């Protein structure tokens, strides 16, 4: 079993969902972690200076919004579905709706369609006002696959 799935099993017992991020170096570096204080699993990217992509506006780099939406989808799949494998991302399409100011970004995710091998996930990111999303994304993940199947996580 992977370290991430072991961590998931521990977190299910302790309820401290934020610790899921500790098993992923990139999530730690980006200060991206899940939280469930409201009873709903959300993913937060804590603001820090290295997220800026436009110093004039200033605005958070679009690539980091795509990255955190992808992480939000992964945390959602780990936490809310009975996955036996770490989901492997196949592709993601990000729509940029508003420029993101230099404050925290929060994202939610939901499964649009769960297949036997493939899951379609929608994720949405906002800052202070949930009704004004800064970016949304649709992504596909392989949830059961052979080792030669695609990608990253």
């Amino acid at each position, binding site marked *: 079993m992977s*370290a991430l799935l072991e961590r998931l099993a521990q977190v299910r017992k302790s309820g401290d969902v934020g610790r899921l991020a500790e098993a992923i170096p990139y999530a730690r570096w980006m200060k991206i972690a899940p939280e469930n204080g409201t009873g709903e699993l959300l993913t937060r990217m804590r603001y820090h200076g290295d997220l*800026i992509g*436009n*110093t004039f506006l200033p605005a958070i780099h679009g690539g980091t919004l795509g990255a955190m939406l992808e992480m939000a989808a992964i945390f959602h799949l780990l936490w809310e579905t009975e996955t036996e494998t770490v989901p492997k991302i196949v592709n993601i399409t990000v729509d940029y709706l508003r420029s993101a100011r230099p404050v925290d970004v929060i994202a939610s995710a939901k499964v649009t369609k769960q297949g036997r091998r493939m899951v379609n996930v929608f994720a949405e990111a906002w800052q202070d006002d949930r009704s004004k999303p800064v970016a949304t994304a649709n992504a596909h993940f392989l949830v059961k696959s052979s080792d030669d199947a695609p*990608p*990253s996580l």
Partner: protein
Amino acid sequence: MDKAERLALFQMWFSDTIPHNKALGLKVIDARRGFASMQLEWREEFVGNPETGVLAGGPLTAMLDGCCGMAVATMLKEPMPFATLDLRIDYAKPATPGKTVIAEAECYRITSSVAFTRAFAHHGDTKDPIAAAAGTFMLGTKGQVTQAQSIGAETKI
């Protein structure tokens, strides 16, 4: 302006002065009209799966977004603010742990409002991509124009 001077300017405005690109350590390796290329060195903190050392999707997404944006900037004869409208990434295969990733982006069409780009990330062989991207950019967005967005005019590329 010779090629080395031009690349130094691109490096300054597209990596050294853009905090997230600088944090990723993005290095500009080529720029010409309608084309941009950058590289990303493998680092432990970019890893998505610590057991395999494979990169997370995030660093690739940020690099491909930046590289597509740079390709757009090379097409602008007049400085103009622009922003990513949408970005699709297909993850074709895992990046090899420890290996440098190269991104190459092309801006193949530009209109008065929108620029269309395509990009690939690979380890040196464009026929064996790690990821493919398609990005569109909205031109003439609000805000002040940045140096990066002025580079087409500045270098007369």
